[in-house]
């Protein structure tokens, strides 16, 4: 059965009312598809969703769009402000334009796809989310990234992966510089298979052969018995 699309116009409805309506959708209904019109850069649009909704946003959004997302698919047909999909737990957030800083920050799961560029600190402190960026990412991306994959088809700004834990970074373009304890690693067939799967999930047609892999040298966060006296 085809879902009914409900249009919600933010020139007539407040973000608070929009989100309340999205939060109130019952799990056992077929009416799970929504279109948000005239977002005009408002903050926290479609934040805190917990059901498997589809929310399409027709325009540019402000801060923390689709933050804390669970299960829902949120699609932004425009640019996103700071912290899009911040702390995402599951589901998908797709930005068809560019994203501002801290995209996917501290995300625990799910998928974030950014068609254009993401700016500074993309994937900061990511904890299991997978992030695929069609363009480039800004400085200090994947800072303190703990788990999950960050895929960048363009370039990465300075200090990529600073103080990284066990997240894995695949970068196709230039890397301006690596942050502390982030190193380039071998790209095996298994890694290429993982990357190919990530690109396919993101809906991007790219060859895994063009990418390099980066991750933690594990000298910063591992306990070393030689350092016991420092504590």
């Amino acid at each position, binding site marked *: 059965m085809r879902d009914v699309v409900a249009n919600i116009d933010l020139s007539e409805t407040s973000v608070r009312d929009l989100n309340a309506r999205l939060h109130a959708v019952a799990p056992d209904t077929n009416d799970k598809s929504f279109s948000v019109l005239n977002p*005009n*850069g408002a903050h926290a649009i479609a934040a805190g969703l917990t059901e498997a909704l589809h929310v399409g946003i027709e325009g*540019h959004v402000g801060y923390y769009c689709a933050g804390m997302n669970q299960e829902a698919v949120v699609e932004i047909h425009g640019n996103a402000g700071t912290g899009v999909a911040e702390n995402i737990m599951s589901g998908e957030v797709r930005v068809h*334009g*560019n994203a*501002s*800083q801290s995209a996917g920050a501290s995300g625990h799961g799910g998928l974030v796809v950014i068609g254009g560029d993401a700016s*500074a600190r993309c994937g900061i402190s990511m904890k299991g989310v997978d992030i695929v960026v069609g363009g480039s990412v800004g*400085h200090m991306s994947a800072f303190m990234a703990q788990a999950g994959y960050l895929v960048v088809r363009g370039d990465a700004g300075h200090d990529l992966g600073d103080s990284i834990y066990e997240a894995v970074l695949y970068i196709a373009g230039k890397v301006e510089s690596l942050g502390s304890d982030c190193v380039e690693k071998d790209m095996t067939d298994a890694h290429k298979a993982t990357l190919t799967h990530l690109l396919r999930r993101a809906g991007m047609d790219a060859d895994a052969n063009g990418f390099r892999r980066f991750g933690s040298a594990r000298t910063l966060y591992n306990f070393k018995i030689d350092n016991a006296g420092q504590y």
Partner: protein
Amino acid sequence: MCGIVGLFLKDQALRPNLGAMVSPMLIGMGDRGRDSAGLAVYRDPAPPGSIKMTLRRVDGDEDWENLKVELAAGLGISVSGTEFDDHLLLRAATDAETVRDWLKNNRPEVRVVGAGQKIEIFKKAGRPEDIVARYGLDGLDGSHAVGHTRMATESAVTTQHSHPFSTGLDLCLVHNGSLSNHNRLRRWLMRHDIEFETDNDTEVAAGYITYRMRQGATLEEALEAALVDLDGFYTFAVGTADGFAVLRDPVACKPAVMAETDGWVAMASEFRSIAHLPGANDAHIWEPVPATVYTWGHA
């Protein structure tokens, strides 16, 4: 927090609408700062040999008519002016320093908010929508404007502490962020003949730019030097006679969005202050790169 906005009209046909276009930008940043607001508008140039100065009275008793008469008689020049509530937009057939000296001796309680051929600065403690209404900012024409909404974090909420800060003739500065070495830098600048009215950090950045340009630096060179000498967080917008400049610190956690169409260039802390501009949804939109000076202006 704090919000900053800038609008530069490339299409001269839009100039009658400058105030109507920029006022919603300022009001749109009200959620980022409710303490005070200000707008520098560039319009209606004074003829060569004359100066435009925006004055502000601190107490309610200043009689602008008397001031104009006494200033004209005292300096033997022609003086005119338009009153905007507690601000007076003064036009005098002399230079800024001469008027400043006369005010210091005869009206020490009157503040000079800005001076130059084109600049007019309006600022006051209060909400941006109140400030737009009080001075009728939405009705002003002009070529470009720079504005600020303040949420004070490091010094008092007064009109004197509010932005834009004048940094020289036809120059002003607005700031989102906080500087950490402003006390030491203020003392250093005071030893180099830069005067300060408040303990505000942004006033120090303004004084720093004034100092560098007095030493012969261009605005771009002064801002490049600021990257070395100013410690802290900042997105700056600097209004100039011909346009405006934007600079973000190297860490760049204070936001900035730029948008450009054939008709205008706009910058704001957030896109929602740009969304209402004609053609915004189809504009070229990007974020200024950290530690890089951007300038827009008439060639």
